[in-house]
């Protein structure tokens, strides 16, 4: 039984990381239809920013989160202004362009910082475990779960309760008419892209204590995160959250039943099925226009 709960928690903690990565991607994809394959590199930049701030300014991960959000957000802004904005009417081409951006960002980091893996210290206040019977949960992972939920909540608040969010949602649903009502759609797009990139940066910073920080670290994440976004459904925060949870728990379950490789294969096949039979996502928004 303990094994079951342990595994359920493992799934939850995988889901929390996935959610943070996918959330930014979901906003970028939902708002602009841009398939951002450079998202993994934003995650990587977040991790390197954490390393930079730690080794040169001595800032811990938690303290530097706002700065990292800004730094990666700015890079995202630059990428949007420089490349992505020319491609809004060609969604499939964004796959190619952002893949190129990913290659460039990776190589820039490699040339600037070096290709060896970097060390970022874990916040010491989050050391240790909580043990309930045989169920052992690492404090840091518990923190991640709650943090990702609060990021979700903050994003939800931003989208539904602020002027920026309302404008963004208006633009998503009807770009033309939003323009007619004085909304500067290009500015909204740029900010939304920057916000998505910033979230990826935060996610990158927060996974540093668990993984190896290398220029190629983001590549593995982006495919999974993208699958989550598609399964969740375009523009649905709830869908993204639930899909992350499902994928995380399913990965944990299958890898417990089989092994990590076949578990991943099973999850991928399940995702293919879901996309095939529910291409509109888990929570399709039925509204008549």
């Amino acid at each position, binding site marked *: 039984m303990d094994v079951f709960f342990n595994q359920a928690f493992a799934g939850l903690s995988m889901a929390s990381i996935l959610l943070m990565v996918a959330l930014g991607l979901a906003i970028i994809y939902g708002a602009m239809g841009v*398939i951002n*394959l450079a998202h993994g590199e934003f995650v990587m930049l977040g991790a390197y920013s954490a390393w930079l701030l730690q080794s040169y300014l001595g800032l811990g991960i938690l303290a530097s989160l706002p700065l990292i959000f800004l730094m990666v957000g700015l890079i995202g802004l630059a990428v949007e202004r420089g*490349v992505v904005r*020319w*491609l809004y009417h*060609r*969604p*499939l*081409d964004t*796959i*190619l*362009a952002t*893949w*190129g*951006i*990913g*290659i*460039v960002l*990776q*190589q*820039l980091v490699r*040339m600037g910082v070096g290709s060896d893996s970097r060390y970022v210290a874990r916040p010491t206040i989050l050391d240790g475990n909580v043990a309930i019977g045989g169920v052992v949960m690492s404090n840091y992972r518990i923190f991640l779960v709650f943090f990702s939920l609060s990021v979700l909540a903050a994003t939800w608040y931003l989208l539904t309760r602020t002027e920026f969010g309302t404008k963004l949602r208006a633009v998503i649903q009807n770009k033309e008419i939003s323009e007619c009502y004085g909304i500067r759609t290009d500015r909204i797009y740029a900010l939304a892209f920057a916000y998505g990139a910033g979230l990826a940066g935060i996610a990158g910073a927060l996974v540093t204590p668990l993984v190896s920080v290398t220029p190629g670290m983001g*590549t593995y994440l982006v*495919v999974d995160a*993208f*699958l989550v976004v*598609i399964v969740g459904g375009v523009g649905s925060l709830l869908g993204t959250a639930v899909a992350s949870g499902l994928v995380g728990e399913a990965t944990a379950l299958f890898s417990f039943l089989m092994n990590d*490789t*076949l578990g*991943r*294969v099973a999850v*991928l*096949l399940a*995702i*293919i099925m879901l*996309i*095939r*039979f529910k*291409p509109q996502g888990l929570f399709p928004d039925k509204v008549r226009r």
Partner: protein
Amino acid sequence: MNRNFSFDCIGYALFALLLLVVVPWGLGFDGFELNTFARYLTLGMVAMALALSWGCAGILNLGQAATFGLGAYIMAMHLKLKASVNMPDGMPDFMGWTNVESLPWFWEPFHSLPVTIAAGLLVPAAVAAVMGIFMFRGRITGVFVAIITLAFLVAIQLVFVEEQRYTGGENGLTGLAPLELFGWTADNYSLSFYYFVAGCLICALVLALALVRSKVGLVLRAIKENPDRVRFFGYDVARYETLAFCASAAIAGWAGMLYVLVLEFASPTYMGVPFSLAIVIWCAVGGRDSLVAAALGGIIVNMLEGRLSDLFVDGWTLFLGMLFILVVLVMPRGLFGVFHGALARVIAFYRQARLERRESLAISRSVVSGTHDKGGR
């Protein structure tokens, strides 16, 4: 129609001439250079295969590498068996190391070369058929096709890596025998081998062209523009899409088989996401609207990659990444689009000039004859 057909012939004859005469001559009939170029040709072939589904039918297959890899493994299995005749039970060495008792049943048929070649074309096509029917019956299009094929690619690569007992795992299939075909042994540094690969590419191109030039190609172009409207004429859109998908897979499998001959091993990286996305990029650089252009895209980008990595050992990927961004931004229809646009402009200019000359002639003649025909054209 006839004039267009002759233009066709000239274009393809030029391409064939290029591959069969100009390139080997330009490379000085050098074994190493020819071998390197043969590699580019196989990569061009898989880019061409993608153009068949992406350019013609609008199906962006991000998992093209999966069918390429299948073809590669099938050929490698045959060559591995040939290399293992002296092993106990004729079993490949890696199977012994992973405690496999006897040769698995699905390896048996690959003792035979004809079966191998047929399988190298048909297995990828069959896999594509299953995927195609699965997706297109459900009217899955665009991004969703891209994502499903991508997920499928990741899954199939994981399976190949996991089943090390049968596939050689991460190392792939290595230590292969050379191919023997009708008494000819493939030496991949020879001119004859280069011609073999180039011949295969031209052959595949001609077959693909036949498909594109037939009514199937026409219907596919219509489907790409408006699948619903095509249905109203009684076409089963899913079948057409599946056919394009299968044909593309078969050619990709073919290219995979050649790739194994060129590189002398099969590796699961042939089924990797980076490789698969690279195929898409070659196709985009060349121009997905034309099969030859896509093949050239594959050849050119790989050549460029080769040259760049020679010139800038440290930063060549940086240049490559920037190149992709630039191509997407500046040349949305690839090199082909640029050439096409330029030539169309030239032709339009001459046509205009000819028209004006004719008009001025007509006017002067009418002035001379004194009849003012108001609507004279």
